[in-house]
């Protein structure tokens, strides 16, 4: 199930809220656990088994670590957990990719598995690993209650698309969290904002990208290609950050405080800064569990560069089982090393706009690598951006520009902290009445518009059949 579906909004959310707030405190984690399993099972019932297996396994591993703490066997639980989680991830996500690559290189005919990817597996395997690692390191206490642990693993708000919640960040909240109207109201506003970002901005600007990306490279113009990749950049940002907003908002409604996952990445002045603002929970995960254990920046420049390379190869690979994602990771790895070595110093001396333009260009070029799984298509698109298509601009491109200009402008504003700052200023200066009106309009307006778009998606007059 996804948040931006009528099933979620009309059936699941009302039901889970009702039951969650009706049961006493001791039962709340069980309610979350059960509903999360239903949420997960909705699309692919079989893989619930996988999730339950993961839950039991990591729960046991946590106990093993605790039991043998201080002895030579302490690491058994840790190693078991990491190996099994990585194997699961590898088996379901990467097997076909490697079979395909091997077949391609050696001309073998190994049949592919063609298994559907279990939803959210990249997220929850990372979360469960963080649990055993945190317990092993003593960063968090072992969870005795398997229901509470199950609620952590399967927690539906962040199950499908993150943020990746480290166990240590949420351990205390699992056992003890406060529920209040204040939190709930904040959660509502956050959730509705995320819904709007996903349904109104991402889906609609995504239409522009899907038209342009389907156009034959020979018919595409340079302006069209740039417009397209900008549209893609907005689509992926509003889609992903909208989903994170919804997750954080829902979390608040249920009393959780998740860490932020996006912080206006497109206003960055360097790629280093961009990655501190984009998908922050993934960056934190790689930093805490890979980069720092490898030695981070404390063991000299050469090793630091090696560590950056490792992290970025893995980051690229994590995003998808295809070489273009690896290349995308390498692209960022190289840029980040360059920035570390000299570029950041230069950028600091240059006027701010240089940094902004450089960052946006780098990110947009990155999106080209990201968007096309087929290298040939990606390369052809890149060439069109730099003038190898059918000219600079055409009537078709002009129509797209005019049609989407207002939406693009809304996207630009929404990608900056402008509205947030405005809201903060309002909060400081305006009376309660005005603020309440603003909040109500925001909640009512965004939900009504989102519902209108969700329903219209299925509105499909079938005119020729009966006419």
């Amino acid at each position, binding site marked *: 199930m996804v948040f931006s579906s009528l099933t979620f909004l009309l059936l699941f959310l*009302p039901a889970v809220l009702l039951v969650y707030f009706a049961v006493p405190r001791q039962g709340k984690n069980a309610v979350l656990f059960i509903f999360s399993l239903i949420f997960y099972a909705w699309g692919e019932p079989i893989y619930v088994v996988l999730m339950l297996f993961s839950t039991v396994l990591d729960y046991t591993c946590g106990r093993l670590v605790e039991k043998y703490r201080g002895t030579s066997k302490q690491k058994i639980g840790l190693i078991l957990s990491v190996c099994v989680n990585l194997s699961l991830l590898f088996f379901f996500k990467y097997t076909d990719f490697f079979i395909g690559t091997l077949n391609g290189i050696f001309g073998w005919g190994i049949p592919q598995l063609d298994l559907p990817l279990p939803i959210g597996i990249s997220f929850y395997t990372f979360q469960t690993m963080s649990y055993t690692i945190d317990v092993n390191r003593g960063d968090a206490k072992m969870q005795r209650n398997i229901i509470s642990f199950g609620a952590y693993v399967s927690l539906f708000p962040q199950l499908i698309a993150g943020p990746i919640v480290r166990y240590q960040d949420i351990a205390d909240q699992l056992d003890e969290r406060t529920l209040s*109207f204040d939190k709930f109201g904040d959660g509502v506003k956050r959730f509705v904002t995320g819904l709007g970002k996903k349904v109104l901005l991402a889906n609609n600007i995504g239409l522009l990208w899907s038209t342009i990306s389907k156009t034959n490279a020979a018919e595409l113009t340079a302006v069209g290609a740039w417009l397209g990749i900008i549209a893609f950049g907005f689509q992926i940002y509003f889609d992903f950050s909208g989903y994170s907003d919804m997750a954080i908002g829902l979390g608040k409604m249920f009393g959780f405080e998740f860490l932020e996952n996006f912080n206006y990445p497109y206003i960055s002045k360097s790629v280093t800064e961009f990655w501190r603002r984009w998908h922050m929970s993934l960056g934190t995960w790689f930093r805490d569990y890979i980069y720092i254990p490898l030695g981070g920046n404390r063991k000299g420049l050469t090793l630091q560069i090696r560590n950056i390379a490792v992290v970025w190869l893995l980051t690229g690979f994590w995003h998808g089982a295809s070489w273009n994602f690896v290349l995308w990771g390498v692209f960022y790895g190289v840029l980040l090393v360059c920035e570390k070595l000299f570029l950041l110093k230069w950028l600091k001396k240059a006027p701010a706009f240089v940094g902004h333009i450089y960052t946006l260009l780098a990110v947009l070029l990155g999106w080209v690598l990201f968007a096309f799984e087929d290298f040939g298509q990606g390369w052809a698109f890149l060439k069109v951006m730099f003038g190898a298509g059918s000219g600079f601009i055409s009537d078709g491109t002009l129509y797209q520009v005019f049609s989407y200009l207002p939406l693009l402008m809304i996207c630009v504003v929404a990608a900056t902290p402008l509205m947030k700052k405005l809201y903060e200023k309002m909060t400081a200066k305006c009376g309660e009445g005005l603020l309440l009106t603003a909040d109500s309009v925001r*909640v009512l307006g965004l939900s009504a518009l989102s519902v209108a778009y969700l329903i219209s998606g299925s*509105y499909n007059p*079938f005119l020729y059949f009966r*006419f």
Partner: protein
Amino acid sequence: MRNKIISILFCLILTAGVAAHFFTVDRYYSENEKRTLKQLPSVSLETIRSGKFGDEIEAYLADQFPGRDGWVTVKTVAERLSGKKESGGVYFADNGYLIEIHTAFSGRQTVANIEAVKRLQDSLAEQGITLRVMLVPTAGEILSEKLPSYAPNADQQEIVKYAKKQGLNVVDVTDALNAHKGEYIFYKTDHHWTSLGAYYAYAAWMEAKGETPDPITAWTREQLCDNFRGTTWAKVNYPFAPFDVIDAYYKTEHHKVDYNSGNYVTDTIYERKFLNGTDQYATFFNSNQATTVVFGEGEGKLLILKDSYANCFAQFCIDDYAETHMIDLRFFSGSVQKYAKENGITEVLVLYNIPNFISDTGITRCS
């Protein structure tokens, strides 16, 4: 305090959504969309296991959402405000015109349909029967000046040229329609031409046959309704769109009409019961029927292979013939040649609007 009110507001919204769903009766059919709506799916272990049940529930919720058509209106208005020049496959053109978007045609179906008609034309010619093809450009072509600036728009003349090159006996009505494009020849909210537009094509067809058409004043004009909102409107459900007027033209008010070989016989080509519904264009010849025969006072027997564009066109030609037969290939499964032979057909007209002509898969069955 503020957050408390917001919390309660949100819970009210959710409750209202749930309540509205459970206390409204599910609809079976959507007049606007002309399709049956999804009903509550039945549960089975198999559909749950495959995840199909989830998809069906989502489709059901969307189809049965309270005030469904109104929500589409909200979306259309939002798209208009956000500067979009199109919505749901329809351009918002000048003067309130809602015009169907056609940006590309399927080459394969075009070739197949034109080949099929050519074969029919050749074999009928051997029996001494002339077949003509009237390819009618739609509003997107004739009224292209009204389209939004730079709007992508497929060139329908390419199809006419190609059909001629392949040897089809084409009656080109483009010039006739272009000459009158300032007049009310296309509906603003529907993909059809008006009766007036059909008359100009009729006149061009008569001239192509070397005959002189009667002036439009030879027919009595009767306004059938002035509150028509058709197919392109249904796609956007746009409240600020204009209403269309439907006119009927007849020399004599009554004709014997026989639908589907005696299935339904009546004395008028206007099925006025449709004027009370939302589908008023269906008044002409009882919507779409597999076969229709109209009896007139003229000579010869005309067979029209057609889409719904012929329904108002036929008003003008039925008095010229003893019998006018119409076949809708979407619903007719027999052999056209056999039909022509058995009914003593003397002349054949293939009448389609261009986008339909090259996309209708029924046409390949005509030969």
